């Protein structure tokens, strides 16, 4: 597109034709307040915060949706604009539950920030305070419509990014509310509990179901043995959640959690490595049965199972494709099952006293731990799940000076991890980790990518595919794969997953293995991660994840010393009896 000339606040600017007034102003360094606008979503133009004056126009222009035209004269802080913004802001605040101290988003709320910036101290439109309207007990995602400003970011997130579309505006005028079919609770509709709506809510109308209180109580109970596991993406999110720039801060995270007074700080990365072994062998087994034995019951492509939002989605939307899903539990659940068996034995504690707390970048993990089948050890695999944000809140409450902590190491038995596990946090990471291990198992050689970096499966493209051709010489027992081409695909965000599974269902693709993550960017963009989220922020977190991978001594899951010990002492072999009992699961069709 060629450039055109416009005038912004009296200054001539050359801007790209076709951009919106908002984009032109942002490029020019002129700030325009927005609320309903979000870089991940379609344009709604409903909040009317971004009104600007365009010379010759009868009405004010909505800068987020209005394209610039040649010689347009734009004014962003004229008297009219200033009055309009203040009026819109006051109207929103008047209809909002402004009891900020009671809100999860106090201090990180776009409405609060705008009110402060615009110095709204008196609101002549304010009537009686709006009461809270908690309306349901949903396992991961909660709503309070009294804080909702009807920007519809959540509606667009659910529909556009996730193809779930369970929330819509209902009613009209000032009685409009964002609700579900027949006003059912989120736990009674096909909500995947992914929490992407939370990440994009400008206020506190959406938030996670908190378990901070329960975790403090467990920590404070001397009779209980609190074991914490931390997911890969938390270590690149926690600094951000505490107000620092995006950075990997594994050592400080461990120190901070230990500082809370828990008994053991361990790593979900450990069970991510374990997942790679179990899932890798499951894939190889399916390939052997399908390709060498002609076994019709061996279903391909196999899809990953670590993202609980994805699992709930496929249970609702593609129940006929459930046989494609790996039977492996997610790393969180594998960890829980081992914490109450293997670890309890190693630590010589009564498994009934073990409290397993997960720190997750995810709200769907709160749903996953509640799945009734997740108790094969005789105890609930996982007792409490905290999001990255909840952990940050506990660290703040405990007065821990995160910035000045010294790096500490995870505790032993289930604390070792590899670079392969760390990259679980980014879209494509499970695929890359699985390929690093599976290729070596079947060929006896390292996968032939420079520095083990399998770049074709990396990146932020919604659906990516790659193929890897096997050498002619294979390891013993895997000769059936000699010269075969393994086709893989990666999708992140449920809309991309939806597209991909449509093609799988239609038989249009011949992949062998598919990685799916419910959230855009993978777990690093999960519903429990710091707010806000944008493509740039997710890119930074991804860079931090891959930097962590490169910095680790072990890069392949099967090289993890504690994993080797676990197999030698406890599990005996991949897909063995104990694995099946503790580490694998089954799925169900949902309406």
């Amino acid at each position: 597109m060629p450039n055109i000339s416009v005038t912004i606040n009296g200054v001539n600017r050359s801007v790209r034709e076709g951009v919106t007034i908002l984009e032109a102003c942002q490029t020019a360094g002129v700030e325009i307040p927005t609320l309903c606008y979000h870089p991940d979503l379609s344009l709604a133009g409903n909040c009317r915060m971004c009104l600007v004056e365009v010379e010759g126009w009868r009405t004010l222009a909505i800068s987020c949706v209005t394209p610039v035209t040649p010689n347009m004269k734009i004014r962003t802080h004229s008297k009219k604009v200033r009055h309009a913004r203040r009026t819109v802001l006051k109207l929103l605040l008047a209809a909002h539950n402004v009891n900020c101290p009671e809100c999860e988003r106090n201090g990180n709320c776009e409405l609060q920030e705008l009110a402060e910036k615009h110095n709204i101290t008196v609101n002549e439109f304010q009537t009686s305070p709006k009461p809270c309207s908690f309306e349901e007990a949903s396992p991961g995602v909660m709503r309070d419509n009294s804080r909702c400003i009807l920007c519809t970011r959540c509606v667009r997130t659910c529909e556009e990014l996730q193809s779930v579309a369970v929330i819509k505006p209902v009613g009209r005028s000032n009685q409009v509310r964002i609700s579900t079919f027949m006003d059912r609770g989120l736990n009674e509709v096909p909500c995947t509990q992914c929490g992407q709506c939370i990440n994009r809510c400008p206020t506190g109308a959406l938030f996670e179901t908190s378990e901070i209180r329960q975790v403090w109580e467990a920590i404070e109970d001397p009779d209980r043995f609190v074991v914490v596991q931390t997911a890969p993406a938390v270590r690149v999110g926690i600094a951000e959640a505490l107000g620092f720039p995006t950075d990997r801060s594994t050592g400080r995270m461990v120190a901070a959690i230990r500082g809370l007074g828990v008994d053991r700080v361990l790593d979900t990365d450990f069970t991510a490595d374990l997942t790679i072994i179990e899932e890798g062998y499951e894939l190889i087994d399916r390939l052997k049965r399908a390709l060498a034995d002609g076994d019709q019951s061996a279903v391909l492509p196999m899809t990953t199972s670590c993202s609980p939002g994805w699992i709930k989605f496929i249970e609702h939307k593609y129940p006929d494709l459930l046989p494609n899903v790996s039977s492996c539990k997610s790393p969180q659940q594998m960890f829980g099952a081992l914490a109450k068996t293997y670890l309890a034995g190693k630590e010589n504690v009564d498994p009934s006293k073990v409290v397993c707390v997960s720190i997750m970048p995810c709200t769907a993990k709160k749903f996953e731990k509640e799945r009734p089948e997740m108790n094969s050890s005789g105890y609930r695999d996982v007792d409490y799940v905290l999001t990255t944000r909840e952990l940050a809140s506990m660290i703040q409450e405990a007065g821990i000076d995160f910035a000045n902590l010294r790096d500490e190491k995870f505790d032993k038995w289930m604390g070792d991890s590899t670079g392969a596990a760390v990259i679980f946090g980014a879209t494509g990471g499970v695929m890359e980790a699985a390929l690093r291990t599976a290729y070596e198992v079947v060929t006896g050689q390292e996968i032939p990518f420079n520095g083990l970096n399998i770049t074709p499966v990396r990146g932020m493209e919604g659906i990516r595919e790659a193929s890897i051709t096997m050498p002619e010489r294979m390891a013993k027992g895997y000769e059936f794969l000699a010269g075969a081409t393994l086709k893989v695909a990666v999708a992140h965000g449920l809309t991309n997953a939806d597209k991909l599974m449509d093609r799988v269902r239609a038989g249009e693709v011949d992949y062998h293995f598919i990685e799916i993550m419910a959230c855009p960017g993978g777990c690093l963009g999960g519903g429990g991660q710091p707010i806000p989220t944008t493509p740039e922020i997710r890119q930074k977190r991804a860079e931090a994840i891959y930097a962590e991978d490169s910095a680790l001594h072990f890069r392949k899951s099967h090289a993890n010393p504690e994993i080797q010990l676990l197999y030698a002492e406890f599990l005996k072999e991949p897909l063995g009896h104990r694995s099946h009992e503790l580490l694998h699961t089954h799925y169900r069709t949902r309406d």
Partner: protein
Amino acid sequence: MAEMRVLTAELQPEAGAALKKALGMTAADVVFEVRESGMKGRGGAGFPTGIKWNLAGAASGADKMVICNADEGEPGTFKDRLLLEKYSMQLLEGMTIAGYAIGSSKGIIYLRAEYPYLVPAIMKARQDLIDRKLMGHFILGGNFTFDVEVRLGAGAYVCGEETSLIESLEGKRGEPRNKPPFPVNSGYLGRPTIVNNVETFVNVPHIILNGSDWYRGLGIGENTGTKLFSVSGDVEKPGVYELQMGSTIGELLDLAGAEDVQAVQVGGASGITITAGELERTLSFDDLPPGGSVIVFDRSRDMMDVLENFLEFFVHESCGQCTPCREGNVRLLDVTRSIRDGRIASREELKDFFMLAEIMKLGSKCGLGQTSPNCFVDIVTKLAELPGGKGGI
């Protein structure tokens, strides 16, 4: 000035005469004729019909659409109902000519939810036209094909706004779209679409038959043609009157018989409120919006009750999408009640609400919120009992 009955004349042109003439012209000439007539849209906003058709005709995109806005929902208007009842042949012929002009073979009449009893008559008129080869496949033996269907609205006032109407037709929640794109480029199902009022289409056969010069001879200046007005309220003879554009409100009230007038609401609840001293003002796009509804209030009426009624209507009918309209109307209603009940201590208190009204006009997404504050501003300024005397803010 007396009535000037063209659209509602006893003797109507033979069905199909205008269509025959149009099909003998090029599509561009038909658009040209309509544009030269100077006719502006009869729904109220007054966008020149010929320009709209020209844009849609020039737009790239298949399956162009002709949509008739028959969602007559403005309080106090019932003139489209009369046209739909008695002149549906002319309506369908006007839509067919529009189809020919912009290159469309498909029309939809979006009919007000309260008018379902009109459907059989409209469908009978359609069948008559099809039987006479004036609609349907190969009209008059030529290559042009055009047909219409009738779809019922669901009762939302906002669906009279053209993009909300299109959303509703697509089976979605009735809410206005962002513009651009305009419907002429991307309307119903993303197709180039014209949306015109019933009365606009009914004008078309007359313009084609008699020519744009004849049409420009009606009305005053750029306000060409005749206009239908639904007159109601405190008048002797409520009903639909057809006058030349540019007639004064006084002339219209003389026909309907109004005495002891306090105020007249012109253009419906979203229109302008004038007082007895303003009856010389004209019904034209330059002065009082000639949308079609004229409601007369005599001196026995409390205009604050009227205002409350109007604002209750807008509070009920705002779609709730954009902030100024959703939250603004309810605040104006609150303060209206305060004024009526004498709870306003000083005129100063009202300043913020006049500012609110202004911001609603400037910042709402569609015509609903942009016009709903009119009645508040007019009635409070001109007629309300305020501390220190009546009106005059």
